[in-house]
């Protein structure tokens, strides 16, 4: 009957597109474990034990394996990537994106999932600035929403692993903007300048290098982009959903 070719999951489509855009900006695709130790998921990211910031995440702990968790963000790969580069004797500049699955131990509903997808971005160099973060994200969204005009706005925020920390909003304007997204500010992600302690923990000298990092929820981006009304569809394995993409 209809189309012989199979369909790509919308998250895979987004990652494929994001990777192509970031590759053109010099970013490599990096990965790391989903089942992670607490050092890489928390401590190295400046989230010490017993700090209220650890409560910001609802963490899955691994049974009978103290010190291990399902990663709560893709930020663990910031540390792993920088550590491995330093070990190989490769100093910054570094530019990576880390698309991948992350976990949050909470009840699921239309907008909450225990497992979802995030994409980390990290750029470290001698003069990578907050202005570069704005420029990088502006270009990413500009290319993702081809033909529309994209504005980026920062608001103050707090994350233990960035200083300064910002919340990033996006506004799409112009005739080519998806109608439901047009002309309104939408909260997209948390970001900021990598905390010097995080660089230090990964073996990078914070007196010489600085950089930005961001973490964007891909499920949410997909939901906004295509008007998907229920995050649980992503893991539904339902072709009534997947075959629309």
């Amino acid at each position, binding site marked *: 009957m209809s189309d012989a070719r199979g369909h790509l999951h919308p998250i895979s489509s987004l990652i*494929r597109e994001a990777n192509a855009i970031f590759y053109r900006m010099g970013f490599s695709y990096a990965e790391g474990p989903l089942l992670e130790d607490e050092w890489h998921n928390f401590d190295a990211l400046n989230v010490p034990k017993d700090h209220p910031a650890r409560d910001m995440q609802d963490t899955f702990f691994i049974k009978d394996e103290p010190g291990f968790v399902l990663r709560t963000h893709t930020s663990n790969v910031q540390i792993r990537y920088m550590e491995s580069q330093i070990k190989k004797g490769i100093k910054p500049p570094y530019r990576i994106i880390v698309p991948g699955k992350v976990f949050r131990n909470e009840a699921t509903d239309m907008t909450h999932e225990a497992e979802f997808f995030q994409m980390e971005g990290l750029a470290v160099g001698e003069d990578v600035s907050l202005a570069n973060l704005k420029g990088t994200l502006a270009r990413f969204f500009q290319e993702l929403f081809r033909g529309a005009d994209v504005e980026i706005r920062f608001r103050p*925020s707090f994350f233990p692993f960035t200083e300064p920390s910002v919340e990033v909003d996006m506004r799409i304007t112009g005739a080519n903007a998806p109608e439901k997204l047009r002309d309104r500010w939408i909260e997209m992600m948390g970001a900021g300048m990598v905390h010097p302690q995080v660089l230090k923990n990964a073996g990078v000298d914070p007196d010489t290098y600085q950089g930005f990092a961001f973490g964007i929820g891909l499920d949410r981006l997909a939901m906004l982009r295509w008007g998907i009304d229920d995050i649980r569809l992503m893991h539904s394995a339902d072709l009534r959903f997947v075959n629309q993409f």
Partner: protein
Amino acid sequence: MKVSRNWLQTFFEKSLPSSQTLADALTFHAFEIESVENDVLDVKVTPNRGHDCLSYRGIAKELSAILNLPLVPHPYGITDVSLEPKTNALKVTIENPQLCPRFSAAYINGVRVGPSPDWLRTALESIGQKSINNIVDATNYVMFNIGQPLHAFDAAKLVEKEGVRALHVRMAEKEEKMLGLDDKEYSLAPSMLVITDGNTLGHSPTGELGEAVSIAGIKGGKPTGIDENTTGIILEAANWDGVTIRKTSQALKLRTDASDRFQQVISPELTAYGLKAATDLIIKLAGGEVAGFVDEYPSPQERRQVTVSTQKVNKVLGTKFSDADIADVFTRLGLPFTKTSEMSSHWAVDIPFERLDLVIPEDLIEEVARIVGYDKIPTAELSPFEDKPMVNANFYTAEKTREELMHNGYSEVCTSVFVDKGERAVANKVGGERPYLRSKLVDGLKDALERNVRNKDLLGLKEVKLFEIGTVWKEGKEVTLVCTADESGVAEKALGEESSDAYEDLPVSTTERYQPFSKYPSIARDIALWVSAGTTPEDVLATIRKAAGELLVRSEKFDEFKKDEKLSLAFRLVFQSFDRTLTDEDANSRMSSVNTAVEKEGWKVR
């Protein structure tokens, strides 16, 4: 934290702008605003500012800096409060000063407990607090106003020995009990801090120590609480270790406005200021006089200086701020500073005691960025990357595998990593269901195949073919597998690793909008017709669709052959409703309309 505009106004000389303007100012320069209702802002204070901004004073200082509005000068500075005279009628001892860095107290005699005046009741009620009596309300008011939690004991309910009452701070004993002001009995543990009546030795579970009169920093005890007959009070303003308070609060499932503040860690310098403010307010509202103060503060908080240069600010932010811009931010925030070198524009900032968040130069850089405004940060692309980015072999292979499978008609799905059985499990899953991490993909895909086969007609598929590329945990390792499922079976294998020095340019989804689908089952019916040679399938479909009505969600030709001058066409029609399960009669009546319509066109149903 709930912040009423009227209450906030007491910190400013000039009339404040509208609540919405205040909300916008905070949103873009300090904190997210959850809601604005009836001139009350719900401010989401970030964890790094829980030290100083869970108070009107903190929020007022922020707004003063952001909007450049002067604050009402305070009669006394925070650090030059004198807790004089001292009294010998109260003795305070601390077992472990690391967990209780400071304990300040005032002994006040001759108060008259009664209702609070209207202004105080209104202020507390505006932020959802219940008015209790003038003494308790005064302590709550001061807590919200300047951020120091306080507690009032009825002095007469503490045991007096030779003219002296004694408060002793220690760790609780195992299963030590205390009846809280909320009439609940709490069972304590040795990890928790308590304030005890030091003159009641022999009342603890071991029979040696004094009776617990307060769960430190969280909840006062009922037996020593204020009532309508209270005349003498002991007012406590202490400082507690944040981690201990947080763990105790979690263990007892007891969160109070006081524990919310202590667990964020507040400066011990604040106790004197809070105590003085509360004492003054109580005497104003309830009369009485101060017999004297006690102040146990063995290791005063050290002063901190943080330095940053204009050049560093601009390097991190990518800006061109001048020395004057930076000096203006520090001035507006009330951060005392000196310029250490005129030439190189280095700034030494004396950090106010309550700003425990300002530790490194980047913290000051954030202050500059947010007060000047993030809209002043330019948009600058990264400089071109010197090296070619790496091609990730796993991702390259996964992408290649996807293309091959899609080419062969397989669609990609994603199933949950959580399953009923596996080698490893999570310890604390909300709800407790499916705590294991999958060790294979086949089970999830088999299940997905079964579910999708039911929708084959609706999907217009001859065969359902699925694949998943996903993580599993087996033999102690985390590995990526690729699994395929079709009507001939389900199989998985390790995702290989191919490398390349460039990614291929692969197609992405061109879908504009997702269309929600009905959760109800569909019904498929076939119809085959003889039509004359010149008739196209599209002509027939148009007639069918018109006659079938809106329950027809899919209609496709699935067969066509010619016999003599006649053409046979066969169509599959799928009916589905968005709000109910269709019955056979529903489908039958639609089909009979279709039959009538096609026969009217002169086509013969086979």
